[in-house]
C-alpha cells in the first residue's frame, strides 16, 4: 500500500522533473528571478551594511517565498495548456499520489532555488553564514514543505480560475503567515548566533504546520480535482 503510493508518487515527480530538465521553463526563470530579487533589495534599502544585517532574515525569506511562488504558479501549467487534466484524472487509483508527486517536484525546485539564494545572499550582503548553513538549511526545508503543501493545493485550484496569476498569491500568503513568521524568527535567531535550541518553539510550530497540512491538503486535493 505504502510502496504503491511511493511508486506512483515517484512516477509523477519523475515526469515533472524530466519535463523540466528538457524544457527548463521553470527552474531557469526561478533562479534568475531569485538573483534579481537579491539584487533589487540592495537598491530598495541602500548599501548600509548594518541596516541590511538587521533585516537580513526577512529579505532572505522574501526571496525564498517570491521565488517559490513563481514556481508554484507554473506547477499545473503543462496540464492546463495541453488539456491533460482529464488524463491525469483517468489514471486509476488514489489521487493522493498525484498531489504528493506534484508537491515533491515543487519542493525540489524551491530547494534548488534556495541552494542558490543562500550562498549568493551571504556573498552579496557580506554575512558570515557559512558555519550556520546546516541549521539554516533545516529551517529553510521545514518552511518550504509547509509553504509548498498549501501552495500545491492552491495552484491546482487557481489553475482553473480567471486571473489565476493574481489569485495564487492572494490566497497563499494569508494562509502561510505562520510559516513565514516561524521561518523568519528562527532564521533571525540563527543569524544572531543563537543555536537551534533557542528557536525550538518556532521549529515545533513549523513541524506542526507541516504535519497538519501534509495530512489536510492531499485530502482536500480530491475535491479540487473532481470533475
Amino acid at each position, binding site marked *: 500500500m505504502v510502496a504503491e503510493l511511493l511508486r506512483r508518487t515517484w512516477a509523477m515527480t519523475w515526469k515533472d522533473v524530466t519535463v523540466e530538465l528538457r524544457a527548463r521553463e521553470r527552474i531557469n526563470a526561478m533562479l534568475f528571478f531569485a538573483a534579481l530579487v537579491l539584487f533589487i533589495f540592495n537598491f530598495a534599502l541602500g548599501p548600509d551594511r548594518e541596516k541590511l544585517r538587521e533585516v537580513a532574515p526577512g529579505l532572505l525569506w522574501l526571496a525564498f517565498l517570491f521565488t517559490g511562488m513563481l514556481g508554484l504558479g507554473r506547477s499545473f501549467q503543462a496540464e492546463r495548456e495541453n488539456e491533460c487534466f482529464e488524463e491525469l484524472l483517468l489514471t486509476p487509483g488514489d489521487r493522493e499520489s498525484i498531489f504528493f508527486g506534484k508537491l515533491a517536484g515543487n519542493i525540489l525546485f524551491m530547494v534548488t532555488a534556495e541552494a542558490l539564494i543562500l550562498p549568493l545572499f551571504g556573498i552579496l550582503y557580506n554575512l558570515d553564514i557559512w558555519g550556520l548553513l546546516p541549521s539554516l538549511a533545516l529551517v529553510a526545508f521545514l518552511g518550504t514543505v509547509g509553504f509548498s503543501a*498549501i501552495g500545491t*493545493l492552491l495552484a491546482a*485550484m487557481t489553475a*482553473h*480560475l*480567471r*486571473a489565476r496569476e493574481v*489569485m495564487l498569491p*492572494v*490566497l497563499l*500568503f*494569508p*494562509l502561510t*503567515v*505562520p510559516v513565514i*513568521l*516561524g521561518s523568519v*524568527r528562527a532564521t533571525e535567531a540563527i543569524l544572531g548566533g543563537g543555536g537551534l535550541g533557542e528557536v525550538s*518553539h*518556532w521549529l515545533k*510550530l513549523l513541524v*506542526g*504546520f507541516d504535519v*497538519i*497540512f501534509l495530512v*489536510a*491538503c492531499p485530502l*482536500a486535493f480530491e*475535491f*479540487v480535482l*473532481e470533475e
Partner: protein
Amino acid sequence: MGRGALATRVLGGAAGLLLAMGLYLGLVVAPPDAVQGDVQRIMYVHVPSIVTAYIAFFVVFCTSILYLWKRDLRFDALAVSSAEIGVVFTGITLATGMIWGKPTWGVWWTWDARLTLTAILFTIYVGYLMLRAFAEEPLAGARYGAVLAILGFLDIPLNHLAVYWWRTLHQPSSILRPGGPSVAPAMLLPLAVNFAGLVLLSTYFLVERIRLERLRHRTAEVRLKRGRRG
C-alpha cells in the same frame, strides 16, 4: 406577502429595534469609562462586531464541510452569504478599532497580536470571496470555496500561536476570562443588547442573501429554457 416574507420583515425590524436600543444604552445610559472617557463607548460596536464575525466564519466552516459531504447547493449558498457577512463585520471591527486606537494608544494601527490576527482573518476571507467571484464554473467555485474555508479555519489556531509569540499589546479580553467578566454591569448591558441586535441583523441578511441566491439560480434556469426553445 407570504408568511416567510413577513417573518423576515419581523426579523429585520427586531434587529433594527435592538440596535437602536443598544446604541441608546451605550451612548446615553452607560457611564463613561473611568480612564478613557467617552471614547471607550466605541467598544459597544467594536466587540459585538468581532464576535458576530467569528460566528459567521464558524458558520462558513460548518456549511463548507456539509456542502462537500452532502453536495447540497443550499449549504453553499449559506457559506458564501455567511462569508460576506463575516467580512463586513471584520471590516467594521478593524475600522472601529483604528478609530479607538488613535486616541487611546496614539496610533491608528499597531502590529499587536490581536490586530494582526484580525487583519489576517480579513485577508483570508476576502481571498475566499475573490475566489468565488473568479470561478468560471459555479459548481467548481463551490468546491474550491469549501476547501479554502476549511483550510482557512484550520489555519486560525496556528496563526494564533505564531502571532502571540510574536507580540502582544492589546488589552486582554475582559468578558471571556476566568473568574467572570470584569466589565461593569452598566456597560455589559449595551454590549449584550448590541450583540443580540447584530446576530439578528446577520440572520436577516443571511435570509435575504439566500433568497437572492435562489432567485439567481431560477433566473439562470429560465434563461436556459428560453434559449433552448428559441
